[in-house]
């Protein structure tokens, strides 16, 4: 009787010993990790809001009454409203072709889609200057027809599309690949057309992954600084997005206003993280990479 009981006891002791560290190790490691995260994540985040409210509520809200700030917010929203849907349509089209069909050069295409993530934001802006700037390939032609792309809104939109290009596609491709084609095949054997299959079967299957990609894409589109900085020309009230507006205020030592606008973007980041966490919690399979 005693034999098995003891050996079972030994086993649980061994198991606990094997996978659990002593309390002091746990405490130390947790403390160091949290200290690191506090220094690098929580303190900067707290600093944004503290600096924004340093002079109180009034000056904080004054920052948003400034016409330049309003126009920067408008431009940021406009840019995201154009860039996100375009990259959304691209992401869905690319992942439909890549996940549902076999064709030569598929893995090359997947790599090329990721390319913008490997490019420095500054270079992402530069390449459009080379195409559309005054000295660029299309510069003379554009000047002749009085079309402005660089140092104007179209350039900002283009640079934003470039830096947010992969977000939706890279979320959807692994997700759709892991889901396979059987649902779509079932739909067509039941007589559904291609569009019916996509809207009624595929889209509901990928909606969380899609949403996930869109919020990340949007966060980056609204917050992009480097690429936009190169093509914007920094014309107040015209080609300044919120991040560029922050830079100008900061360089003018208008810290409260700079941090006030920054706090709005930080809030956007927090909402993005909250939504992201919510999706992961609600639908663990939605995040394709882990499915």
């Amino acid at each position, binding site marked *: 009787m005693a034999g098995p009981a003891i050996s079972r006891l030994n086993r649980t002791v061994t198991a606990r*010993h*094997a996978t659990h*560290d002593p309390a002091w190790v746990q405490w130390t*490691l*947790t403390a160091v*990790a*949290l200290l*690191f*995260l506090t220094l690098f*994540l929580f*303190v*900067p*985040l707290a*600093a944004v809001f503290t600096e924004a409210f340093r002079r109180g509520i009034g000056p904080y809200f004054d920052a948003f009454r400034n016409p330049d700030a309003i126009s920067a917010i408008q431009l940021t929203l406009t840019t995201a409203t154009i860039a996100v849907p375009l990259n959304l349509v*691209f992401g869905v*089209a*690319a992942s*439909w*072709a890549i996940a*549902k*069909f*076999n*064709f*030569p050069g598929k893995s090359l*295409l997947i790599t*090329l889609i990721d390319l913008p993530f*490997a*490019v*420095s*934001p*500054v*270079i992402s802006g*530069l*390449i*459009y200057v*080379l*195409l559309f700037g005054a000295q*660029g390939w299309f510069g003379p032609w554009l000047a002749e027809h009085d079309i402005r792309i660089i140092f104007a809104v179209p350039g900002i939109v283009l640079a934003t599309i*470039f830096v947010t290009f992969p977000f939706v596609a890279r979320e959807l491709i692994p997700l759709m690949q892991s889901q396979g084609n059987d649902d779509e*095949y079932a739909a*067509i054997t039941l007589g559904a057309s291609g569009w019916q*299959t996509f809207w009624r079967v595929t889209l509901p299957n990928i909606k969380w992954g899609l949403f996930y990609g869109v919020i*990340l894409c949007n966060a980056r589109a609204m*917050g992009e600084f*480097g690429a936009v*900085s*190169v093509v914007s020309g920094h014309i107040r009230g015209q080609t300044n997005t919120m*991040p*560029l507006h*922050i830079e100008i205020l*900061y360089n003018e030592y208008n*810290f409260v206003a700079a*941090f006030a606008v*920054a706090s709005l973007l*930080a809030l956007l*980041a927090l909402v*993005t*993280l909250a939504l*992201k966490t919510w999706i992961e919690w609600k639908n663990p399979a939605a995040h394709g990479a*882990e499915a």
Partner: protein
Amino acid sequence: MSAFTFKEQNPLPGFRLTLGFAVLYLGLIVLVPLSAAFLKTATMTWPAFWSAVASPRVLASYRISFGAALLAAAINAVFGLLVAWVLVRYRFPFKKLVDAMVDLPFALPTAVAGIALAAIYSKNGWIGRWLEPLGIKAAFSELGILIALTFISLPFVVRTVQPVLEDLESELEEAAVSLGASRWQAFRRVLLPPLYPPLLTGFALAFARALGEYGSVVFIAGNMPMRTEITPLLIITKLEQYDYQGATAIAVVMLTASFALLLVINLLQKWSQQRTRG
């Protein structure tokens, strides 16, 4: 076989439409603009190119950019592994919140991070004022660059190591201990080896991201030529001086380094997947 016969092999519609659109959009938005940089450089003479990419000021910026990015990636490899370990293995209050916040550097605009870090580490800042008496100048120095790059590349190692660590069965450690290994030996010999591929992948991703970073660095670096001027900033400086060729030549050097890194990362991820599957 041509794409046409492949379409015939699949009963689902829309292949040519979606692939056609995807390739066209990819070409117009990404490939044509990127090739513009290389074609522009191709018009330069070799000595002109060389003097543009290898002048002392440019070389100094490479040293700073590559050096700080490597160091930041290394810091994140160590602390990222630690954070992943603590998040997977231990229980503590607000763990879910902390876990979610690890992605903050992905979501927070770089300019916001830049001014926040500059405010904290300047000599009147929350942390800077404690470093000042010790003779440590954090903001507007090489250290500032390192701090900014560490911040923006923080999530990579955590997010590559974490899922692998979660999948490691505790039976492995139990087996090691039942065979007489000490806890430290079990960690070194059984747990750590499967973590090398994701650790290296995370390191490479962090390095690649830090190398090209601009927004968060410019606010805290001080931007002094030869000392705290990173390569992306130098590209902007050249552009502002209308030296398009010079800017593009440096960009091509950076792009080449980035693409090489991308290749390495792809290979690492393949290796990582093979390891996890086996």
